[in-house]
């Protein structure tokens, strides 16, 4: 990401942080590419993905901000989090509604 979760330096990175926060996910590794030009370039080569932020869940590359947003909207993110043993806070909210 650009910046840190407490202070993102990019709207797309911020959107990712906010989405995870909505799901109650705050305990993740975040790496600030603006502080490390080698990492900024390296991660693009590693993932074969040209932009930042980049999201990995369970070690698997998921995509960028757009994809995460789509997954958040269609419920896929809740499933992906479940696969790695994370219970999304939004499930609890859904349960309360019922």
């Amino acid at each position, binding site marked *: 990401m*650009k*910046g840190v979760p407490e202070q*993102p*330096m*990019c*709207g*797309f*990175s*911020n*959107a990712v942080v906010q989405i995870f926060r909505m799901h109650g996910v705050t305990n993740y590794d975040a790496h600030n590419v*603006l502080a490390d030009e080698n990492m900024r370039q390296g991660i693009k080569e590693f993932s*074969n*993905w*040209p*932009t930042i932020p980049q999201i990995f869940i369970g070690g698997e*590359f*998921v*995509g*960028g*901000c*757009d*994809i995460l947003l*789509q*997954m958040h909207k269609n419920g896929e993110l809740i499933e992906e989090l479940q696969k790695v043993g994370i219970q999304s806070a939004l499930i609890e909210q859904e349960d309360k509604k019922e």
Partner: protein
Amino acid sequence: MLVRSLRVFGLYHPAQFFSGSKTMATIPVKNGNPMELLIRDKLVRQFSPVHLDIINESYMHNVPKGSETHFKVVVVSDKFENTSLLQRHRLVNEILQNELKNGVHALSIVAKTPSQWEDSSKVTEKSPACKGGFGR
């Protein structure tokens, strides 16, 4: 430098790229947006989209006026049938890889099949507000 190498695009008439296409209206030649024209050309050739929007979002970011660094593209094509979101984004990234190495700094992608597009609101949301970046 990007500007020098793309100067030639001011001489193209984009209608050349769209002959035979049923979907794209002729767009006026503008010398000021070579990157946008290039992106449009490549996406049309690759995806023959039934709908295509290319939105220069650079004005929303901490870059000089008139920049062509941040784009949102909305591509609706049957070439996306039976592909995952990640695959679709990778396809678009692949087509635009030169642009992404030479000036385009952020690319927001909406990639849908024609039926998904018809089922949707067809309203494209703006990308998130800039948080300052490092001027890049």
